[in-house]
């Protein structure tokens, strides 16, 4: 069985997730990605599974199947997320709320639970969740999304405590405005307002996000756990 490390990344068909898949492949990882749609990435060490992370059985099967195929799981990046168009909480449909929670909270939970079991047995691993400045800024119109990302941060911190003795680190990266399809869905007004709220006053690039995630998955970050790295933002 090859010795190359294995990274699991959710939401790899586009945006940050696609960038992360390319980043880890370039670092010599075998990468298993998933998303609801197909991936444009076709290469020997990349395995794509079309699925919704909100599907508990499909997500569990994806994690277990990857380990069965490649024998190990070194990194999990919970990136898949759903950012709806903004609504005041008073005008948020139940369907929108459910869709956000299913993808951003349930989906992360299903992947985290499976990988936590594997990494506990391995007594090694790196977990990074992708959260958002929305959880720190409390912007109007982001009620469902911000609440879901705050839940993800809390899950990450609790898991960091639970897995610390197993040599597994869990951290969150709070991305601010990255120019992706998900950011487009927020609309011009919200995007401009979000950038204005940032300390850096500019959008992030996918490469910048990959650099921070890569650091947290490196041996240099072996003592960093339970942290939220906010990018472009002083909280």
């Amino acid at each position, binding site marked *: 069985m090859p010795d190359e490390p294995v990274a699991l990344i959710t939401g790899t068909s586009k945006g940050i997730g696609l960038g992360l898949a390319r980043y880890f492949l370039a670092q010599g990882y075998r990468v298993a990605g998933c998303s609801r749609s197909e991936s444009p990435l076709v290469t020997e060490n990349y395995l794509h599974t079309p699925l919704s992370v909100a599907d508990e059985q499909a997500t569990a099967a994806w994690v*277990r*199947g990857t380990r*069965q195929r490649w024998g190990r799981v070194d990194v999990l990046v919970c990136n898949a997320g759903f950012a709806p168009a903004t609504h005041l909480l008073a005008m948020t449909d139940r369907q929108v709320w459910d869709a956000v929670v299913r993808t951003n909270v349930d989906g992360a939970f299903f992947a985290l639970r499976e990988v*936590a*079991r594997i990494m*506990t*047995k391995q007594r090694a691993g790196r977990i990074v969740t992708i959260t958002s400045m929305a959880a720190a800024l409390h912007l109007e119109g982001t009620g469902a999304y911000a609440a879901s990302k705050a839940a993800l941060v809390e899950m990450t911190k609790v898991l960091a405590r639970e897995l610390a003795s197993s040599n597994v680190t869990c951290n969150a990266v709070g991305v601010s405005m990255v120019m992706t399809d998900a950011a487009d869905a927020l609309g011009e007004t919200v995007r401009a307002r979000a950038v204005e709220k940032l300390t850096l006053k500019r959008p992030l690039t996918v490469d910048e996000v990959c650099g921070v995630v890569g650091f947290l998955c490196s041996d240099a970050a072996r003592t960093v756990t339970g942290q939220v790295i906010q990018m472009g933002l002083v909280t």
Partner: protein
Amino acid sequence: MKREHVLQLIQECFDTLASSDLIKEKVHVDGQTQLLGPNSLLDSIAFVTFMVELEDRITQTLEPDAPMFSLSIGDIHDFNPDKAALTTGTLADFTVRATSAHA
């Protein structure tokens, strides 16, 4: 899969836990050995490791193309209702039924 075979796999899991220092000493498993409950020898990390180890060992007994066998705490709880402890015997009985359904 027979109950005795499952208990043998459980014994091997305990041996692995002992060799990796997740439990202090070797344990001779019988059907009354507690996995969860007041007299369990396993802390939470050792219990998770034990469950994954058992899933792996059971999977190795299945057909090569079979999906990984998995144990659900909720299903085990439903199989063992209103009990303060989970014993290896109960887990073995559950596993016999679950592997039969998995096949």
